[in-house]
């Protein structure tokens, strides 16, 4: 058991270090950053904001991780978020119950995933382009639902998902924590994880070994659609309205970034849900840090770019090997000495 924990920690170490470094950097520029207090029965503070605001990207990153593990990519998640937010809002305003609304919305998200999956797995279209179709058209569909306006709602239940709290934590945090653990368990306790990795590494060999490649590929995109649906509900519930024009806009890039910061290769194969979640939190920490820093907004992008490059350099295999060499220069020097004699 402890060895499993250790393996896990070793895998997540770079991400944990990066996150710690960023948190420390922010708290140095902004002293009150680490403060936590209880307010209205829920935890309140910048750290909680990071977890809360990070919810959509965390959720998207969970689905994206699995898709990327199959050597795919899903550019449509932002648009699917918008569609699902719009569906949720219009369903709740047209009188459906909360339960029905969530059910319908999730079904729509999964349907979007199936569409992407069929394009990739059955029609054999390259994932970037296959999902680009829905990325472009999807936002149009979302706007069609809301007719370009922000569709507001007042259903207390739906709003609760966005800004309520449970056990002292904001609901979005509870949702992604529970969902993340569920997906991680599903993937790792079943054989799904390994089979998906096999497909991502060598699709042909996997198919020849009897892996049900198309079905698993579609399932991966379905999961991504599901994640986008939940993220869409949270985003809409957060502002009590569905903003089809802006919900999830460019979030697909953040989600991909989160997966990569989490150390999953874009070439497919080995993946870790936990690491991607950490990656998403790192990205949100950067965003929140920038907001707290008080720099003029013109500098936002430069700061973000610089920090990302920094983290990625730290994680790059080359840098790590160079670091490993620095760590053992003594022994190496000794052997060469001996050889000289």
């Amino acid at each position, binding site marked *: 058991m402890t060895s499993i924990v250790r393996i896990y920690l070793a895998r997540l170490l770079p991400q944990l270090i990066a996150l710690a470094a960023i948190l420390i950097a922010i708290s140095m520029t902004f002293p009150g950053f680490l403060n936590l207090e209880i307010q209205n029965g829920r935890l309140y503070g910048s750290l909680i904001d990071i977890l809360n605001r990070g919810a959509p990207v965390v959720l998207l990153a969970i689905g994206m991780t699995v898709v990327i593990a199959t050597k795919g990519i899903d550019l449509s998640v932002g648009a699917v978020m918008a569609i699902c937010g719009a569906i949720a809002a219009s369903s709740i305003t047209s009188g459906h119950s909360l339960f029905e609304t969530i059910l319908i919305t999730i079904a729509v998200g999964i349907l979007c995933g199936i569409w992407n999956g069929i394009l990739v797995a059955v029609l054999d279209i390259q994932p970037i382009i296959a999902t680009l179709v829905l990325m472009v058209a999807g936002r149009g*569909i979302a706007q069609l639902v809301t007719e370009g306006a922000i569709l507001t709602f007042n259903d207390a239940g739906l709003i609760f998902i966005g800004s309520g709290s449970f056990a002292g934590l904001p609901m979005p945090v509870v949702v992604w924590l529970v969902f993340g653990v569920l997906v991680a368990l599903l993937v790792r306790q079943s054989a799904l994880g390994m089979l998906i990795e096999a497909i991502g590494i060598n699709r042909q060999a996997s198919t020849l070994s009897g892996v049900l490649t198309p079905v698993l590929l579609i399932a991966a995109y379905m999961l991504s659609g599901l994640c986008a649906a939940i993220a869409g509900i949270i985003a809409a519930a957060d502002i009590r309205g569905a903003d089809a024009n802006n919900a999830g806009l460019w979030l697909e890039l953040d989600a991909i970034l989160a997966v990569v910061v989490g150390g999953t290769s874009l070439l497919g194969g080995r993946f870790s849900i936990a690491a991607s979640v950490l990656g998403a939190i790192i990205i949100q920490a950067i965003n929140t840090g920038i907001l707290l820093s008080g720099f003029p907004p013109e500098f936002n992008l430069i*700061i973000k770019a610089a920090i990302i490059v920094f983290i990625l350099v730290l994680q790059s295999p*080359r840098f790590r090997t160079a670091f490993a060499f620095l760590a053992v220069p003594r022994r190496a020097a000794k052997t060469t000495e001996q050889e000289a004699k």
Partner: protein
Amino acid sequence: MNKKYLPLTATILIFVLSYALCAAQYPNILSTRVIGNLLTDNAFLGVAAVGMTFVILSGGIDLSVGSVIAFTGVFLAVVLEHTSMHPLAAFALVLAITTLFGVLMGMIIHYLEMPAFIVTLAGMFLARGMAFVLSIDSIPIKHPFYGTLKGFYYKLPGGGRITLIGGLMLLVFAVGILIAHRTRFGTNVYALGGGTATAKLMGVPVASTTIKIYALSGLLAGLSGIVFSLYTSAGYSLAAVGVELDAITAVVIGGTLLTGGSGFVAGTLVGIFIQGLIQTYITFDGSLSSWWTKILIGALLFAFILLQKGIIHLSRDARQHA
């Protein structure tokens, strides 16, 4: 016919067919004006897409082009406004900067073994950030030389024009085709796309090729920025958002595989025209709401990809049975 020309042929076929279809509905689409516009309006995209083609052929991707275009425009506007530098000198300077930017990204990608997607994503943030820092305002460029350059065009019968930038795009494509298919560098690009490890074992200079590819993309993004600044006579930090996706789409519609190693620069030109045609068609129709516009663009994109797949599939089968 050689099998490798199949995607290209399919793309051209689809373009010709759909052009004919559009013309049947709106005869005006055949006017030289529309054809001239197709060249001029897509010039900056075309120039950037040539660089993107090389990057994608090598198995990489460059998400920074849109931001680099914006940066170039703002840089030119600021320089021309605040100094007495001649535009040509400013062009040279900005091209040097964007090329260097590409070199840097290439070096990070190669030496630090980081995925191009992420490195260029950071590059995208950085370039746009630099544009913001230079100026958040949109700055008009009033230098008389710009007027001179715009004065160069070839008037077609019927009111259409082949403008300088439209011609420049065709030239860039011609040079791109030459580089891709008739130089050792070009073959090396394809070699990288076929597999970096193998290419390395075969003696391809992977480091210098990778760096040159991103340098070329940076150079062409810069050139595209110049074209864009000529096109709009202005520099604006929010310009050209998402152009990288348009360029990637054009490259892929043009029959190039995103996995690298297979495709044609010429295909990208057709891809650009197909996208331009979609836009023109939608404007000519003029009855679509904002949302239906998006949905239709997505649907047409899908239709093109599907058609391409279908044609390739059919002709493969036909040959096998032959």
